[in-house]
C-alpha cells in the first residue's frame, strides 16, 4: 500500500501525538514505516497525550484496517479502491471556503486555517450504515472552533459541507455510471455541528490523514452513520434551510438527513440492530449489538421531541 509522506501535509508535526506513543501500544509497523518520516525528531520516550474524556477506551483498529477498508466513492466503489487510487490526489495547496450566513466569510489556505487550532486526539467508534464498525484514533479539533471563528449570523441553522470535485485526481468521479451526483455533500443542524463530540479531523494514529481517509480535512460525527463523515472538505456553508445531502438525494427512503445510529430503525439493505467490528475475530467474528447513537448517549438531548423513526 502506498501512503503519501507526511511532509506533504499541512499539519504541524509538533502538534501531533508522537508516533512512538502509539508504537508502544499498537502494531502500526508496516504503515508506520511509510508514514513516519516527519517524526524523526520525536523522542521514543515521549509521554502519550492525555486521552480526551470524550474518547472511548475500546481498542482501536489496526492502522492497516483503517487505511485499507474505506468507502470513499470518489476513488472507486470497492473497499480497497481508495487505498489504491487516492495517492493521486494533491492535498497541497488546499483551500477551505467558509461562507454563507457568517460575518467573516473567507477562503483559507488550510495551513493558515489550522494554525490557531489545537489538535487533540479523539478515539471514536465509527459505525458504517453497512453494518460494520471500527474504533479510530482521530486527530482533530472541534468543528465548533471553526464555525465560531467565522461568526455565524442568527439566521444560520444548518451547516452544509462539500467535498473536492477534481475528476483528474479522483478516478471515481470519472466513473460510469455516476454513483453520486458530485460533489459529495453533507450537512448538519447547527446544534449538531457545535456539539463537542463533532470534530474536523486532520489525522489519525498521530499522523496526518492518509488520502483514502479524507485528507486533508474531514468531518467526524461519531453518533451518526459513517457516510455523514464527509471527506476532503473544500467548503463549509452556513445556511438557513436543511441542505441537500448526497445519499439522501440518491435514496431518500434509505438515507435520511439525520442518519443517527439507531438499532431500532432498519435499513432496507443492512441490519442496524447488530454490527461487526472490523478486524476482529477473522472468519468467525461475532456480531455486537448496535447501540443507540452509537453509544454516545449525551447527544440524545439534541433530539428531544423529534420522532427519530420519521427523522432517520
Amino acid at each position, binding site marked *: 500500500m502506498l501512503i503519501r509522506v507526511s511532509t506533504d501535509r499541512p499539519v504541524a508535526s509538533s502538534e501531533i501525538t508522537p508516533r512512538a506513543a502509539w508504537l508502544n501500544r499498537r502494531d502500526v509497523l508496516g504503515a508506520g514505516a511509510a508514514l513516519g518520516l516527519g517524526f524523526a525528531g520525536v523522542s521514543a520516550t515521549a509521554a502519550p497525550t492525555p486521552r480526551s474524556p470524550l474518547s472511548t477506551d475500546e481498542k482501536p483498529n489496526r492502522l492497516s484496517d483503517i487505511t485499507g477498508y474505506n468507502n470513499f466513492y470518489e476513488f472507486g466503489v470497492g473497499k480497497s479502491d481508495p487505498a489504491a487510487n487516492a495517492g493521486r490526489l494533491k492535498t497541497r495547496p488546499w483551500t477551505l471556503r467558509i461562507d454563507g450566513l457568517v460575518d467573516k466569510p473567507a477562503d483559507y489556505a488550510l495551513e493558515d486555517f489550522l494554525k490557531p487550532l489545537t489538535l487533540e486526539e479523539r478515539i471514536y467508534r465509527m459505525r458504517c450504515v*453497512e453494518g460494520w464498525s471500527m474504533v479510530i484514533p482521530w486527530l482533530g479539533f472541534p468543528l465548533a472552533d471553526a464555525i465560531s471563528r467565522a461568526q455565524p449570523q442568527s439566521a444560520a441553522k444548518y451547516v452544509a459541507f462539500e467535498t473536492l470535485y477534481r475528476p483528474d485526481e479522483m478516478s471515481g468521479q470519472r466513473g460510469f*455510471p455516476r*454513483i*453520486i451526483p458530485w460533489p459529495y455533500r453533507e450537512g448538519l443542524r447547527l446544534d449538531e455541528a457545535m456539539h463537542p463530540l463533532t470534530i474536523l479531523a486532520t489525522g489519525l494514529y498521530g499522523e496526518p490523514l492518509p488520502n483514502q481517509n479524507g485528507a486533508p480535512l474531514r468531518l467526524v460525527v461519531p453518533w451518526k452513520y459513517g457516510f455523514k463523515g464527509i471527506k476532503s472538505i473544500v467548503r463549509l456553508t452556513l445556511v438557513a434551510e436543511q441542505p441537500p445531502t448526497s445519499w439522501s438525494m440518491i435514496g431518500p427512503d434509505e438515507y435520511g438527513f439525520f442518519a443517527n445510529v439507531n438499532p431500532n430503525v432498519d435499513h432496507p*439493505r443492512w*441490519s442496524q440492530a447488530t454490527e*461487526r467490528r*472490523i478486524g476482529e475475530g*477473522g*472468519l468467525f467474528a461475532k456480531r455486537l449489538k448496535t447501540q443507540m447513537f452509537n453509544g454516545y448517549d449525551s447527544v440524545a438531548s439534541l433530539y428531544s421531541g423529534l420522532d427519530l423513526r420519521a427523522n432517520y
Partner: protein
Amino acid sequence: MRRNFPVWAVYGLGFVPAVAAFGAGLSGLSGPDPIRALEQSLGLWALRFLLAALCVTPLRRFAGVNLLRYRRALGLLSFYYAALHFLAFIGLDHNFDWAEIGREIVKKPYAFIGMACLLLLIPLAATSSNGMIKRLGAKNWTRLHRLVYPAALLAVAHFIFAVKSWPLEPLLYAGAAVSLLALRLAPKKSRSLEQAGNA
C-alpha cells in the same frame, strides 16, 4: 480437447474459488472483513456458474460448440455455491441468530429475492440426476428446468438490490443474464434442420 476434458475436472476446478476464498479468509488475506469477502465471493461464483450453464444452449445453437455434457456440472456448481453463500450468511455473517436471519430475509428485499432464487435452484439440483430425468420424463424435466430462467433474473436482481446506488458490475451481470435469456427467444431454425443437426 473438449471431448477429452472430463466432467469431474469441471467439478474439481469449480471448487477452487471456494477453497481459495475460504483459505484467504482463514489466513487473513481477504482484508479486514473476511466474512463479507467470503460471502460476496461465494455469491458471485454462484451467479457466474448459473450464467455459464445458461451459455451452453446458445453456444450450441449459434456457435456450434457443444458443451452439453458439462451443463449439469455448471448448474450444480451454481447451486452448491448458492448453498455455501447462504450458509456463510446464516453461520458466519449472522452467527445462527435465527430471529435476526428470519427478519432479514422477510424484511430486506435483497435477501428475500436471494431466498426466492435459492428456493428455485433446489428442485433443479434435486432433479439433476439421470435417474430423475427418467422418472420425470424428458418433457416434464425440461419444463421444470425452465425455472432456471426466473432464477437467473432473481440472482441478478438480488445483486442489484444488495449494493448501494448503481455501480457497474451488477448491471453488467444483469445485462449478461437478460441477453442469455433473450437469445432463447430467437426464432428457431426449421425443425428439419435442427433435427438433422442433432442426429
